[in-house]
């Protein structure tokens, strides 16, 4: 087997060795329940507060009490949305986008089923929101706006700080939530200045080299929110359940490391840009999803015409390259990604998406291998494809596009 090249960091990341080391004592002699009264437990309690401080530091040096530790970003999102709805019964309208992660999108659909009014903002071909559309959606009874900071599939960045400001200036009673799972540690986020209008911000540890099973929710002081996990008095009575001490310490260490490496994120961007250029130069009929929009420096999402994403992934896997796809065959459903559908990717490339997502551990040697292997894979699969014009070496003309409702058999 060839050496593994991991280019799926938007799915999860390897745990940093420093993180693992920092967690270790809390599996060994520092096992005490942080709520216990004896002196030995106090050190554990202090480790949690030190961790809270480290996370707050990465997010602009805000007051640490505003950080709530959770089990994952999905829990953070659920806690933010359900918590906000329960605390604000007078308002019944939510604004979100059509391209949110399921951890927000499905919660919003659930809230809609429970009688709330939800506006799903569309995106354009580049994956961007229309500001005028957002403004039009704001209503006197709008309770919450939930817009992701950057899209996990395409890496397209939304102007969250500006949207939050507009929402607050329109009506200070509107709460603003952002799912920042893909941006914390990759983009500078200062919740005390530029992002000061954001009330709620979710993220998870395993996207920034902490392990799976820990996340956080920023709750701005004074934000009306009901607890989601009801139980003991932990986390200032905002989340019951004994604190997951080793993982909280791991998350904090990962945040500290991310802060130290933030200035180097442009190096990841350079690698991505080179990879993108080489692929575009060597593969015809391929598009960059989100091209022309501000994007995360680590993400490259390609729409390849005339071939299917799952078989691309399989071929890449055989070459030791880990990537992902929004194709129907890689999801639980038979539909291609809701993000690419919302962006109206052409139907001849809708099933042919591939996402490479890099990290600070990705090397130039690795992206060079991807840049060499990927065009070969595309060429091989196109030889098998009925939608490739083999004589002219281009996308076949006149591919039928059966509209929904028209029988084709």
């Amino acid at each position, binding site marked *: 087997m060839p050496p593994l090249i991991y280019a799926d960091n938007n799915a999860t990341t390897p745990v940093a060795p420093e993180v693992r080391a920092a967690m270790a004592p809390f599996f060994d002699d520092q096992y005490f329940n942080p709520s216990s009264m004896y002196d030995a437990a106090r050190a554990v309690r202090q480790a949690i507060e030190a961790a809270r401080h480290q996370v707050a530091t990465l997010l602009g040096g805000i007051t640490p009490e505003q950080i709530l530790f959770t089990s994952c970003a999905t829990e953070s999102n659920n806690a933010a949305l359900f918590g906000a709805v329960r605390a604000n019964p007078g308002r019944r309208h939510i604004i979100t986008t059509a391209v949110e992660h399921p951890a927000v999108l499905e919660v919003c*659909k659930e809230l809609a089923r429970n009688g709330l009014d939800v506006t799903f903002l569309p995106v354009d071909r580049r994956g961007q929101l229309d500001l005028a559309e957002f403004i039009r959606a704001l209503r006197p009874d709008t309770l919450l706006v939930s817009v992701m900071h950057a899209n996990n599939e395409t890496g397209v960045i939304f102007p969250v700080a500006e949207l939050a400001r507009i929402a607050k200036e329109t009506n200070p009673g509107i709460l603003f939530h952002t799912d920042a799972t893909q941006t914390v540690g990759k983009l500078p986020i200062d919740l005390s200045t530029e992002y000061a209008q954001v009330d709620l911000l979710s993220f998870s540890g395993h996207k920034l080299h902490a392990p799976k099973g820990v996340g956080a929710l920023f709750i701005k002081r004074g934000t009306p929110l009901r607890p989601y996990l009801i139980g003991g008095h932990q986390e200032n009575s905002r989340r019951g359940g004994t604190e997951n001490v080793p993982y909280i310490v791991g998350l904090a260490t990962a945040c500290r490391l991310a802060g130290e490496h933030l200035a180097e994120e442009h190096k990841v961007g350079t690698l991505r840009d080179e990879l993108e250029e080489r692929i575009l130069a060597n593969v015809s009929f391929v598009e960059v999803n989100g091209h022309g929009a501000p994007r995360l420096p680590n993400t490259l999402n390609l729409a390849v015409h005339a071939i*299917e994403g799952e078989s691309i992934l399989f*071929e890449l896997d055989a070459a030791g390259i880990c990537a992902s796809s929004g194709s129907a065959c890689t999801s639980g459903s038979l539909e291609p990604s809701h993000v690419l559908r919302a962006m109206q990717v052409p139907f001849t490339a809708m*099933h042919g998406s591939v996402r490479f997502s890099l990290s600070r551990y990705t090397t130039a040697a690795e992206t060079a291998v991807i840049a060499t292997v990927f065009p070969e894979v595309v060429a091989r699969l196109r*030889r*098998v494809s*009925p*939608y490739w014009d083999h004589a002219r070496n281009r996308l076949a003309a006149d591919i039928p596009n059966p509209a929904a409702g028209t029988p*084709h058999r």
Partner: protein
Amino acid sequence: MAWEYSEKTRQLFMDAVHGKPGTHMGEIEDPDGFGEHGSIVCGDALRFSFRVKRHPADPTQDVITEARYLTFGCTSAIAASEALCAIIEAGGFTPLQALKVTNQEIVKYLDGLPNQKVHCSVMGAEALEAAVFNWAQKRGVDLAKHGVTLGGEKDNDGRIVCTCFSLSEPYIKAKIRELNLHSIPEITNAIKAGGACMSCHHAPGGLQDLLDDAWGPRPTSLKASPTAPASPEPVAPTSVPAPLSAWQLGKKVEKAVDDYIRPILKKDGGDIEIVDIKDALIYCRLKGACAGCAGAATTLKLMVERTLKEQVDERIRVIAV
């Protein structure tokens, strides 16, 4: 989800894609039989063709000597296409005999397929059927006389049940019986129906009804229980009930902008765009030379807001976007 393909499936895919000698990827020029199934929109499609050794007197004695495919689809779709051609060529079948090759045989040849990939093998069987139909037309063979009814071709008409994959009631009904499908997941795995928006599952005349028609209603049928209306699609934003003065306010704002504000900005090579007005909130952005100006926010707040307050309504607030 991770791959759960058999070693055979993996190997066939790799052999096919890497053009190993003896594999069947390609197209036959002037084929004796040609059939297609699926579409690029649905995520997989197979183009299948074969050549026969023609019998001088009796076309039904033609023997398939060569089978080829081009496939758009996932690993298992390509492997299933390869399996189909291998089975057909190895069998030395007449086209009528080839029709007896079922999707189960393809699955067997592949040493099994994950449930959610069974439709890849069905696609092979469907394309084969279409190709035999094409051969019969070319060779003047009346399939009906040989006891063959080609479900797919005859059921072109009929009510569409699954709009996502354009599958009609007669087609789904035929497949429920032919492939012995007893539940909605089985239908989805075999022919993809109901695999996308899922709105046809328990709708009147939907998949559960077709299953009940075929096998009799089951006590566990969800049909009777009310289902919450799903709203998977983005909903158009509902507009705010507008107070009566909105139009007049808008006109007045526009006039004040034209008369007082725009001329001042134009002097500096700038301009202003009103993005939206709701109640007394004016959303606008500075354009031209003003757009990048450090004082833009101050300009908007002070000059534009003050002017509009004076000229139009004291309640007005300006929001820069």
